[in-house]
């Protein structure tokens, strides 16, 4: 179906890309001739895929991720692979082994993470749309920080086949673009069942955004406006919710008690899964060579020490600890109960309201180097991780600027109601544009 090629010669001054495909084949279809950037943890046949890690430097997958197959079939041009926090482990894209991405809105600030390269590429106008991945906010955070739209779909709505796993039970691939319409268009292409991912559902997305939200009931969780949330950010988001009310929605206060431990549950789960997922990078089948003059365990340890960044090693060790005998019950098992509790809290609230709204991030984009302490970086994910634990769809749509930096309004909905959160974001976007 390849009809032609597009030439892609971007000015990548923000270091959004790790690989640029200067000549990208494209074809006929829904995305005919549209340049789409793909996060570098999504496997692309014949194109180096590194997860922004030295440990995958030079790795060229012999197969395409399911979403990449779908992109190609829809005529899109894969124009490059975008920068990210190594293996998705970060909220700033500073944890890339190949240097940080800068925020196009202010180059002294981070673009957010971990899909910072995808967000910057879209925000800077280098591509019209991009794929990101969201484990605990990695699409929504950079969308908010860079002033674009990003959707984390319902868990299971988009196949993860070919996504290099960081935390299997939490992450989803999702669309990022400047407009809700484009996010919706990209979602049409990537959603649907894939028999190679047994956690995927047969729930295709065929929706076109509809701005009519009259009668919509919006839940406003008090925890999303509490301590730690920048008052300016909170004000902007409250104002955005007021706009939704002007469009015919009503808002009701609600509470998510499990927010108390959601972030801890999230970090225990993702580090545990990561400690197992990342163990395969041993320099035998791919990646930088293990030293075959050494014994296996010495060579293995060296490969991992030399080629994983500090944050990755920290998370592998945290996860190893959380799963180790004697601690499994205190950490991993407890985190799974907490996850169920978060799910139940959302189910209870969403039985009563259509969507839940709040800020995407508690602050505007950090300055480069600001989050050198890991725990303070983790805490910034507090408003995004609940949707991953609950497995529900969540979108971030720009709702103004604080101190000259973009702020995101987050809208969360019930399982498989991705259409609903897109409609609400669309209604808001259209109201602001007009």
């Amino acid at each position, binding site marked *: 179906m390849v009809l032609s090629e597009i030439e892609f010669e971007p000015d990548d001054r923000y270091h959004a890309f790790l690989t640029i495909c200067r000549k990208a084949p494209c074809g006929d279809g829904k995305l005919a001739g549209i340049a789409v950037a793909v996060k570098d943890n999504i496997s692309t046949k014949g194109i180096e895929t590194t997860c922004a890690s030295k440990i995958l430097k030079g790795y060229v997958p012999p197969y395409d991720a399911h979403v990449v197959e779908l992109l190609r079939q829809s005529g899109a041009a894969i124009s490059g692979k975008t920068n990210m926090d190594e293996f998705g482990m970060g909220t700033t894209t500073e944890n890339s082994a190949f240097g940080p991405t800068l925020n196009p809105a202010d180059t002294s600030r981070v673009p957010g993470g971990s899909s910072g390269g995808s967000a910057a590429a879209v925000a800077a106008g280098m591509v019209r749309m991009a794929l990101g991945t969201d484990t605990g906010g990695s699409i929504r955070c950079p969308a908010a920080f860079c002033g674009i739209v990003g959707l984390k779909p319902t868990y299971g709505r988009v196949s993860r086949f070919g996504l290099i796993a960081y935390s299997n039970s939490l992450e989803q691939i999702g669309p990022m673009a400047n407009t809700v319409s484009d996010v919706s268009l990209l979602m049409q292409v990537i959603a649907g069942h894939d028999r190679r991912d047994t*956690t995927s559902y047969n729930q295709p997305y065929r929706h076109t955004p509809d701005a009519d939200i009259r009668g919509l009931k919006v839940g406003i969780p008090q925890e999303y406006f509490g301590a730690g949330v920048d008052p300016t950010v909170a004000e902007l988001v409250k104002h955005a919710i007021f706009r939704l009310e002007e469009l015919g929605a009503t808002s009701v206060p609600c509470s998510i008690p499990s927010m108390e431990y959601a972030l*801890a549950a999230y970090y225990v789960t993702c580090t545990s899964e990561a400690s197992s997922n990342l163990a395969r990078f041993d320099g035998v089948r791919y990646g930088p060579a293990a030293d075959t003059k050494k014994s296996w365990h010495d060579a293995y340890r060296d490969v991992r020490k030399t080629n994983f960044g500090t944050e990755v090693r920290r998370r592998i*060790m945290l996860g190893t600890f959380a799963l180790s005998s004697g601690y499994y019950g205190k950490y991993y098992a407890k985190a799974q109960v907490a996850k169920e509790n978060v799910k139940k809290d959302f189910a209870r609230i969403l039985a009563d309201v259509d969507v839940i709204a709040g800020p995407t991030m508690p602050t505007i984009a950090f300055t480069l180097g600001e989050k050198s302490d890991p725990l303070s970086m983790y805490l910034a994910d507090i408003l995004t991780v609940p949707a991953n634990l609950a497995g529900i769809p969540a979108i971030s749509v720009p709702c103004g600027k604080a101190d000259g930096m973009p702020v995101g309004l987050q809208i969360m909905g019930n399982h498989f109601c991705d259409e609903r959160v897109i409609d609400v974001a669309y209604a808001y976007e259209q109201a602001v544009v007009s």
Partner: protein
Amino acid sequence: MVTEQDVQHIAQLADIGIDAGELGTFTARFNAILDYFDVLDRVQGDGAGARDLINVMREDVVEPSLPQEDVLRNAPAQEDGFIRAPRVM
């Protein structure tokens, strides 16, 4: 509270190298994070949830494997179709 010794033990369990120079900071940060994780002690409930997707399986049908050259292409060292690895004995 974990000690530097504990952290070294975890590093060994994870089979991941850690330099003596970074051990201090690593341990301090590790402890800060683990302190934060203690909030999980307050979690109540049995964790039981709905199982909406069960018995997801495929039929026993053979599909093509990768060509051997694709299997070996990313391997740093190979020999007669095998992939070379450090000694285990």
